[in-house]
């Protein structure tokens, strides 16, 4: 049976939920070991969170240098583990950090890399959806360890309880991985909402909001969703650029995407059209976004959203 390593990332005070998505995909191809790079003295605490899904083993490496020196420090530690333990594959979540770590590990271990996969098969064939969702590509790493980054929400994670074996490793971070230092970190301002690319549900607003995102935010909050925006809305200064969904913004692939007052330019569609279920609310019955809709409403978002928000709230109470 192949050994598959996954990188468990810490998000705030928890292990990121993408870790369990990686483990679930990894289990398609072999026995899963999670690598946990934790702050000094906190390995056991975070390792205790890895008690779900098909994780059979956890390797904990503790060091405050991971937070202080960023991508290269993590990449060196992971590469050391890969070199000594020789797994078949390493799966990492497709965040900015995750992809850079994957790229650096590929350089350090002279291995092939595939980014933004949505599935991994038993023989480590990776599936990617490219060109704004119009093509499915299957590819395989042909040399070294298969290093594959996985888009958040690509699959529903297996969360059955488990009791992985936990081991600790000590790894010295070399000076060449300490060349850039993190001086401070301001976490993203999410207003208590989930992170856009990781959210199960995204509610987005566009030109049709005329700058008033309050009905979009209210519907997002009742659904526990993240808020997105079209480029028209972010360029107009109605919503922060960090929330832009599209070709030049974030790519999201949630279980449910609700597009409110968004016409559906290619630029926007490229960032959301692999969402599982798409709901559209737009006054213009000819808006191209309706082509993607599983459920489309031709109507005013300022009437439809408050009614839907009330409807969801009533069901939950």
């Amino acid at each position, binding site marked *: 049976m192949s050994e598959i390593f996954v990188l468990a990332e810490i998000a705030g005070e928890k292990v990121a939920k993408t870790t369990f998505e990686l483990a679930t995909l990894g289990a398609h191809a072999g026995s899963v070991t999670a690598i946990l790079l934790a702050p000094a003295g906190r390995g056991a605490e975070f390792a205790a969170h890895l008690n779900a899904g098909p994780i059979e083993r956890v390797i904990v490496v503790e060091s405050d240098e991971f937070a202080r020196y960023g991508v290269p420090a993590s990449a060196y530690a992971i590469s050391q583990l890969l070199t000594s333990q020789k797994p078949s594959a390493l799966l990492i979540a497709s965040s900015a950090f995750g992809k850079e770590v994957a790229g650096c590990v590929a350089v350090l271990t002279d291995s092939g890399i595939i980014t933004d996969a949505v599935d991994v098969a038993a023989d480590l064939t990776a599936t990617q959806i490219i060109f704004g969702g119009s093509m499915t590509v299957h*590819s395989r790493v042909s040399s070294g360890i298969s290093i594959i980054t996985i888009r958040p929400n690509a699959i529903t994670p297996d969360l059955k309880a488990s009791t992985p074996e936990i081991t600790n490793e000590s790894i010295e971070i070399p000076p060449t991985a300490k060349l850039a230092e993190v001086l401070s970190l301001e976490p*993203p301002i999410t207003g208590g909402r989930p992170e856009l690319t990781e959210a199960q549900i995204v509610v987005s607003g566009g030109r049709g909001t005329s700058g008033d995102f309050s009905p979009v935010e209210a519907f997002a909050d009742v*659904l526990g969703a993240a808020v997105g925006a079209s480029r028209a809305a972010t360029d107009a200064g109605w919503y922060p650029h960090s929330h832009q969904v599209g070709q030049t913004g974030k790519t999201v692939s949630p279980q449910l995407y609700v597009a409110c007052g968004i016409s559906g330019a290619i630029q926007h569609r490229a960032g959301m059209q692999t969402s599982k279920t798409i*709901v559209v609310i737009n006054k213009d019955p000819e808006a191209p976004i309706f082509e993607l809709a599983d*459920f489309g409403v031709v109507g005013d978002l300022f009437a439809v959203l408050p*009614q839907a928000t009330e409807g969801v709230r009533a069901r939950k109470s």
Partner: protein
Amino acid sequence: MEGGRLDRLSVDSVLNDLDEYAVEEALRIAEAHGGNGAGAPHSVTVISMGPERTVDVARKALSMGADSAIIITDDALAGSDALGTSKVLAALIAKGDFDLVICGTESTDARMSVIPAMIAMRLGWAQLTFAGSVTVDPVAKSAVIARMTESGVEKMSASFPAVISVVEKINEPRYPSFKGIMAAKKKLMEVQTLASTGIDANLVGTAGSKSTVIDAVPRPPRAAGIKVVDEGNAGTELVNFLVEKKLI
């Protein structure tokens, strides 16, 4: 940056918007500290890898104000993966005497966003990536950036030499002026082949790629969905749809 050079690099075959942000940022850094060009303390070199039309890409950067260009074009490079691309670019950079390499970053979802980190790793240089702002201290030979990712905003610092990648909207790239376009025609453009880097052709291009595409198939269009016209009840109908789909 006395005697040093600022550098910028394109990893794409067209000078897309994001590469223009990188050129603009390099020019701004030089201009903030005495300028670039003949007689000025700094110089900005464009480095680009790609097919023959890469010449036009580099020419545009020169017309924006960069001083010279090094481009590498070779049939053996076609089909290079991120490993091959970063290997070639790192080899070109290592041959020069640069303090900073500034690259564009595509969105956080694009393949090329990993290349700046891979180049830094190959060179053994500091990596300051996903910069939404850059401050350079030429006396201390150091740079501070605001790294902007889904994890938030991190302030990071490093000494030269460093690879910086910039995010979209870090600046407003200038349009080449008529004077700039005319001046660019006289600027030095060095065209290199793979042989001049000393890299074995089997390690780059399709031959050296460490991943293989098995197949690529068009995805079927989404099945037509339900479309309702709001007659005062569409919000409730929407909730019913979400319940039916077990989404709430």
